[in-house]
């Protein structure tokens, strides 16, 4: 069973995503800030990370950067989930980090699951 880590400081977002992904047959881990996400990834093996950008303690950009820097984690696919759009610098890093990204409000859950399926069929 594929295992997905959902990282977002917004608890309702984490909850809705967890429910949907479980119903789609995935195993789901959750983290509410960037540091927690890194700790989890260090302990367990995840097949995909859904990552928010604006978070307390450690933001999504730093998490993405560290994941891509480490040999062990750089091949884990990441989908950035954000409502930020104007910050071009963030987008550049996301693109350079070879990560997909979705504007949360503009996509339905079905779209999101579709994107996940593409990454881990």
């Amino acid at each position, binding site marked *: 069973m594929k295992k997905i880590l959902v990282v977002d400081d917004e608890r309702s977002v984490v909850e809705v995503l967890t429910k949907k992904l479980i119903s789609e047959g995935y195993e789901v881990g959750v983290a509410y800030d960037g540091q927690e996400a890194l700790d989890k990834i260090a302990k367990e093996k995840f097949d995909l990370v859904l990552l928010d950008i604006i978070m307390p303690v450690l933001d999504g950009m730093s998490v993405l950067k560290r994941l891509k820097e480490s040999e062990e984690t750089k091949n884990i696919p990441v989908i950035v989930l954000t*409502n930020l759009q104007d910050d071009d610098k963030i987008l550049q890093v996301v693109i350079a980090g070879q990560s997909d990204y979705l504007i949360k409000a503009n996509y339905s859950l079905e779209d999101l699951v579709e994107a996940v399926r593409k990454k881990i069929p």
Partner: protein
Amino acid sequence: MKIRTRILINFLVVFVIIVTIVTLVTVELNTRAIRATYLNNIQGVSEMRDDEIRRFIQDQKTIIIIISQEDGFQEFLQSGQIRSEYATSAQQLLGAYLKEDSIFNEIFLLDNKGKVVLSTDKTQVGEDKNNDPYFVNGLKGPYIKDIYLSSTTNKIGYALSAPIIDSKTGKTLGVVVARVKPDGLFNLLEDRSGLGQTGETFLINKDRMFLTPSLFKGSDVILKEKVETQNAKDCFNPEEIAKYKDAPIGNHLNMPQLKQYVDYRGVNIYGTHSYIQESGWCLIAKIDQSEVSDPVRQQIIFHVAANIIGGLIFIIVAFLVSRSITKPLEELHEGTEVIEKGNLDYKVGTDTRDEVGQLSRSFDVMVASIKQSRIEVDKRVEEQTKELVERSRAMEEQRAAILNILEDVEDEKNKTAVERDRMDAILHSIGDGVFVVDKNLSIILINDVALKMCGHEIKDAVGKNYNEVLRFVYEAKPDTINDKFIKDAMATGKVQEMANHTMLECSEGRKIAVADSAAPLKDKNGVVVGCVVVFRDVSKERQIDRMKTEFISLASHQLRTPLSAIKWFVELLGDTKLDAEQKDFSKNIAMSTERMIELVNALLNVSRIESGRIVIAPTPTNIGDLLKGMIKELQQKIDERKQVLNTDIAENLSKINIDPALIRQVYMNLLTNAIKYTPVKGKISVKIFVKDTDVISQITDTGIGIPEEDKNKVFTKFYRSADAVKIEPNGNGLGLYLAIAIVESSGGKMWFESKVGQGTSFFFSLPLSGSKPKKGEVSLDS
């Protein structure tokens, strides 16, 4: 350098070169000729002498042979010297020889034992000579004995001897010996013809002793002095002697060429030698080197002297010739100096007939004509001076008249100064920056506020083109001057607003956001003569604007996060088991959420456009295809409302360079509006056509139309007309605002025509030349 000196030097140089060459050649040739003459002479003499001596020796031998054949001698010796009559006749015979020919000192006969049996010197008779070479050799044939000092006579001479042979029996009876005076030989060698002053020939014997007298030391050297010179030694070299063997008289092939030697005196000579085989002597011929070279030296001295004398004569001639050439020139020069001092009556007056003479006479003629023209000039100057005096008097009068007028003008000026001061006071008390330009765009008036904004002084501003003083630029494109509003105002004669986001750029690089307008300045005939520009610092307003935009942006982000959670939960809710009423509720929640998200996205787009940070990325696009594609997307909505949509897209539309995502947004807004506000079963038409340099899109609905009082608010943000709200309560009032903002930032224009009750046509143009790309930071949310 003076011409004369130059001529002299040229002459001298040529002369020296020619004379030197001629002298060198002549001396060389003469030297050779002289030396050849002398040396040929000495060579010739030595050859001749060689022949003479050899012939002389032959002659001597012939003489002694003839003597030896005298019958009287034979008879005397046959008789055994007993018969006195033979002895007497033989004695007479000897005496006769001595008498007849004085070359002999003594003649005597030896018997075959070597004993003197008969002699002209009777004291000799009875002497035994059987060891003497003339006896030993004389027995064999004619013999000549070297010159020697006779022990008996104490005289220098040589001896000839020959056998006396019995003509009948062939038996040798004895030997006849003749002592010969050397005078004949000496005469031969002392012949000085062809030998010059120091030439000589002499003989030496195999002991290298002189046999004949020396020119320089006389006859005392004979048999007393030895010749120790190299050529003497060479002459008796056995190899050398061998070459001469059997050479006939007249053959001088073996005689060596003349060479330089040192002779017995120690003097340098040219000499040669020849071996006389008949007698074993050596003939030496020589001449002093000095005699040969002296004439050469004399030759050289003569030539040099001749050249010096010739040179002096030549210089004198050259001097005279150059003088004859330069003298007229000097006269001419003196003449010019005199004339230069002002004496125009002077005449050079050279009477020579050559070119200089002609020049000089022409010069005189020229001076005369100068004098004539000067007289004329003086006359004309006098006339003009008179005229000038008259004119200046007239001008003086005019000046007085002008002064009067100026006084009047001064009064007027004082009056206008009062008015101008009043106007200045007004201008400078205005709180906004104001400046006035003339039709050449030069500043003619400027107030303190305008000056202070960039810290200018009034003297730096007035009279200059306003662009040099106040640079208005676009905020987004700081390199581009934005003075269209001023130019438009002057061109159209109407008040023009500044474009949004205009900055005033100060020289030190500081930029101030400004806003306001330009109003044309007209004269009383309504012709534009300048422009009044009023502007003010809107930095603070701009800052507040920016803060507002940032607030909207941030708020929208924050709003989107809970909205997305709501959206997703409603989506999950839809998957659960719900009754009909609950389903209806959740559907309403989903729709409201969707509208909320759209509103937030629209607000975000507005803030992006307003902040000027939008990206424009033009790509060649066929906008006809773009529009057709969108109609297809919206076809379902059109069909739902049973509307008819006509399209009229110009054929052969070429692709234009625009940002398709942005223009799509414009079409989307206009089309959805048209569908919304056209009643069910109503007609919608879209049209794309080319006009001048633009492509114009027209979207026409058959809706309610826009009432006159609302027309100027149509493109205002959040504005919705009351009628529109009635028809479609869900609009957000941002669609047209966004559409016009996009079109304008793409280089186009947007406008509309509308009649209440009939419908509205929205138009927007895009330049065929395409949009300019812009590197922004953000793109629009779709």
